[in-house]
């Protein structure tokens, strides 16, 4: 049963919702066009723009809280975008229970990360450009989540892809960063292809890509089309959210500045796939095959990500693997159907807080260690960078799921829901929780405890206030977000996700106790392996296939190379050969024939008027001949 939202047209405050998008977009353009004059103030302009968006989002949220449930989903029509033939696409915004949570996350965490970046990028000479891109990202991401229409959503979808590309490759002087940006862009194109085809099928089948029309039409879809459309959307989601099989770009994306990793590649953009699946629930609910595929992708990714996380020495890559894994949890929840939607969004929000917190913490550590990312060169930092340590610890406790921190509630619900639907998925989710505890404990131990393994000339120091204050705020939310939202979010999201509220527990259930047991085991194992023995300065050679596979990202690049890159190169070489040996020869031949013909024909133009008169006379004969032939024929 699909329940549809009741939408009300925008009035008052809501008719200005577009300003949330316009302000950062205009500031981004201003910063990019403005040039060097803005170098000194540009970053504060950008911070201001996000704060404006955040205030607007907060006001709208407050309005919604005060209004009754029937008046919370608001449409804001903007303009006729495409009017051609039978197509009429209206660009508009949809501010409902789901999108406002995203808007708050994007602008809230976005504001903190903007402020943090003021300190983090202080010595970068291209700081103004960096902030312009960040604002561009905020604007595009808001278009993505606030769109009332898949085609408008796609604009935001591509916009965040562009911003991600620009920011991953921000340090373009590093070949590795340029390559990573390119890789992210190309792999995202694969997902975008699915997205494009999904939107095209919507236009073809429903004559519109508006959420309202698609939700209505989905109920009448035949199984073939609902499965096709679901799988296409899932392909798009996999690309954007770095889910297997399109996961390989996210680890490389860590080449970007750390605030970018925190904002785009942990808290917001990579969760767009989860948003897409939840938003398209009407389509997924019509196809068991498509939802099974979502569960499968989520389960596989949560294990793959965790596995990669266990064997990396680069602090950001551990966190990246962890991000993949946690998004896998969300995807899994989204694939579970009505029981899971709210939990997927719940985990998405808590993850947004604690993962942004830990990424920024990692940035702060790197700041202290002269941008070294190798955890084997860290150690004993807890006493030196105390604020970073304590805030990071809150994120750590939250992600491994220690009650009553944020991650405990959100992850535990997903594991329980998974058991309700499929034992296999439930066991995998449970196992993932144990592995998460293992690799996060390893990270904590290698970074903050043990011996000092600092390189010569590195003098760690705590980061400035502009960086630590956002950390403290995010740590606070990592602690309380779970308790605050646990009893509320399901009911709040019910109209938007069409799911029925389902009583949640406050105290651990038997599965909850089991989870905690596994978490404890993971922590203990990590302590035994990394806490009791000194950490070697280089990664010890290992013949353990699990370790080797983890260190090589489960051979994701090798698989892509063998399955896609090499065949494509062979095809491309074949086409080039065909071009130069067959087509060019043919085309040149045609050209030669025509110029030969031309050279002969132009000789008829002798310049002598008697010849011209003769030609005309021949023309007269020709005219006569044609006329006679016509009469005969």
């Amino acid at each position, binding site marked *: 049963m699909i329940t549809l939202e009741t939408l009300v047209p925008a009035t008052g405050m809501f008719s200005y919702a577009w300003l949330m998008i316009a302000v950062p977009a205009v500031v981004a353009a201003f910063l990019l066009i403005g040039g060097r004059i803005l170098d000194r103030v540009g970053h504060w302009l950008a911070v201001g723009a996000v704060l404006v968006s955040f205030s607007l989002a907060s006001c709208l949220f407050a309005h919604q809280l005060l209004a009754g449930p029937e008046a919370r989903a608001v449409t804001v029509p903007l303009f006729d975008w495409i009017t051609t033939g039978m197509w009429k696409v209206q660009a508009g915004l949809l501010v409902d229970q789901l999108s406002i949570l995203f808007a708050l996350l994007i602008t809230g965490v976005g504001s903190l990360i903007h402020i943090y970046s003021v300190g983090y990028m202080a010595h970068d000479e291209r700081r103004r450009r960096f902030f312009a891109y960040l604002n561009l990202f905020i604007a595009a991401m808001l278009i993505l989540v606030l769109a009332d229409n898949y085609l408008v959503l796609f604009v935001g979808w591509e916009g965040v892809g562009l911003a991600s590309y620009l920011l991953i490759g921000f340090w373009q002087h590093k070949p590795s960063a340029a390559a990573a940006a390119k890789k992210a862009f190309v792999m995202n194109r694969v997902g975008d292809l699915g997205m494009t085809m999904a939107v095209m099928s919507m236009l073809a089948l429903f004559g519109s890509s508006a959420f309202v029309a698609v939700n209505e039409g989905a109920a009448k879809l035949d199984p073939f089309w609902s499965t096709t459309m679901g799988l296409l959307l899932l392909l798009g989601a996999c690309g954007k959210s770095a889910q297997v099989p399109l996961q390989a770009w996210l680890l490389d994306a860590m080449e970007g500045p750390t605030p970018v990793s925190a904002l785009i590649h942990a808290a917001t953009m990579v969760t767009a796939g989860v948003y897409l699946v939840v938003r398209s629930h009407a389509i997924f609910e019509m196809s068991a095959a498509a939802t099974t595929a979502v569960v499968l992708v989520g389960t596989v990714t949560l294990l793959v990500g965790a596995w990669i996380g266990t064997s990396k020495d680069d602090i950001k890559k551990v966190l990246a693997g962890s991000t993949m894994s946690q998004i896998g949890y969300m995807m899994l929840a989204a694939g579970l159907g009505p029981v899971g939607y709210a939990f997927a969004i719940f985990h998405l929000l808590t993850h947004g807080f604690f993962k942004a917190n830990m990424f920024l913490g990692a940035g702060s550590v790197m700041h202290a260690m002269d941008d070294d990312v190798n955890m084997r060169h860290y150690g004993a930092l807890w006493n030196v960078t105390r604020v970073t340590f304590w805030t990071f610890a809150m994120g750590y406790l939250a992600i491994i799921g220690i009650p009553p921190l944020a991650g405990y509630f959100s992850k535990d619900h997903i594991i329980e829901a998974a058991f309700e639907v499929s034992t296999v998925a439930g066991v995998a989710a449970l196992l993932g929780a144990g592995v998460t505890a293992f690799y996060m404990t390893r990270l904590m131990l290698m970074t903050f405890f043990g011996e000092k393994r600092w390189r010569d000339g590195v003098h760690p120091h705590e980061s400035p206030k502009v960086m630590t204050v956002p950390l403290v705020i995010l740590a606070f939310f990592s602690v309380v977000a779970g308790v605050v939202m646990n009893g509320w979010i399901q009911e709040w999201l019910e109209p938007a996700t069409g799911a029925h509220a389902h009583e949640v527990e406050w105290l651990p259930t038997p599965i909850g106790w089991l989870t905690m047991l596994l978490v404890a085991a993971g922590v203990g194992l990590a302590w035994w392996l990394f806490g009791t023995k000194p950490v070697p300065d280089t990664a010890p050679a290992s013949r353990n296939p699990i370790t080797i596979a983890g260190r090589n990202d489960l051979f994701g690049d090798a698989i892509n190379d063998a399955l896609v890159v090499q065949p494509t190169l062979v095809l491309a070489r074949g086409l080039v050969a065909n071009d130069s040996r067959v087509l060019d020869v043919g085309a040149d031949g045609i*050209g030669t024939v025509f110029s030969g013909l*031309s050279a002969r*024909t*132009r000789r008829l*133009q002798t310049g002598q*008027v008697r010849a011209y008169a003769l030609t005309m006379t021949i023309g007269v004969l020709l*005219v006569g001949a*044609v006329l006679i032939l016509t009469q005969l024929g």
Partner: protein
Amino acid sequence: MTITAPTFEWLQLSPVLVVLLAACVGILIEALVPRVWRFLAQVVLFELSILAAFMLLVLSWSQPRNSLGLMAMGAISLDGPSYLMWASLLVFGLLSLLVFAERDLGNGVTAFAASAASVPGSPAEAEATTARHEHTEVFPLALFSLAGMMVFVAANDLITAFIALEVMSLPLYLLSGMARRRRLLSQEAALKYFLLGALSSAFFLFGVALVYGFSGSFELGAINDAIANPVYGRGLLYTGMAFLAIGLLFKIGAVPFHNWVPDVYVGAPTPVTGFMAICTKLAAVGATVRVFYVALGAERWSWQPLLAVVAVLTMALGVVVALTQTDIKRLLAYSSISHAGFILVAVVGATAGAQGRVNSFGSIVFYLIAYGFATVAAFAIVTMVRDSTGEAHAISSWAGLGRKNPLLAGIFALLMLSFAGIPLTGGFIGKWAVFSAAWQGGYSWLVIAAVAASLVAAYVYLRVIVLMFFSEPVAGVAVGRASGLTWVPVALGAALSAYLGLFPGPLLDLVTSASTFLR
């Protein structure tokens, strides 16, 4: 016996009258105004008169009643096509006459001979050149020609058409021979044009006589009736039709009656070439369509194959010979021949057009307008690219123009793209319209041939673009400093070429709605 006074619709016919009157006043200016003032007086006169004619045209057309009908005792048929053609002729006439008046490029004198009557190289010529004399008669001559063209496209009987044909042609023969530089070439071109033009006029007149013999009337409508109820055998009609076609196709520049085009376009002063390339073509096509659709419409099964064969020959020869041209004016001449072929494709189609679709005449007028804007600007640009001896006509000397003057080279590239029919230019919409008209008329094979020809044509135009932008600049060739008189046609031509490609809707609607001929 009572004699009724002939009626004459003054307002409706005023556009032609104003132009004719201005031409006569121009002659008086030559006789009465001192030499120093003549140039200014002529320029002001042609500008004002053409603008006035245009305004009167709009006024007459927008009248709720009496704007359409047979005028001047049935000699002129004033219908939608006439208005469209008149408006186009006036606009393009004004734009090309502006280039006539350009003096900045030639060190303060126009592109016309100081003394056209003196023998080239003679002391008389040298004297006139030193005295900086100019032939300001070119303006009234062009106005006479323009008036002839306007009557030609609206003529409702064959005698009026013939008179108009001569009124339009005679001044052109003179103008062609009046180049300031390369005078021998210019005079040779004029003589060729005159001889061949006389030959074609003879054919036309003979055709008029034969068709009169068949139908007993000069009136187009009456000829059509006679075809429906013939009194005599059809031999007279077919022979007459063939001869009429020859006379008209000669003016259009269709193969095999095209020989004069390259030589005359190259020899004539470039401003005159521009005028001929647009206005003569407009007038000739307009009259051809009227004669064939109105007078011979009932006989279309016999002339459609004829025109189809001519169209294929014209397109093919135009584009193929253009491939190896080395002179920019000659290239544009062959280009103009091939465009005549594309237009004939739509003439052959001869469709009234379904609701909401563009019909034959509408597509022809759109094509002519798109072609006209590109042509007026292209020839104006040819006058601007110069070396020490005057205009640099060798295509090789245009190499690297993109670096010397990116704006002008960019505009020329846009015009080339429009000629080639690349999307987002007016030329593309024009080609699309004429092809779709022919397709609806059942001539799909002709459309395929036309598409093939436009493929080859693309090479011709792209070659020029490649040369301008991807070759080393040639020393000694530069873009002259022209006044607004040249820049206005260039800018307007370029802007409209782009505009008609982006927003063809309004003009397409206008030409489609105003395409019903009166009989």
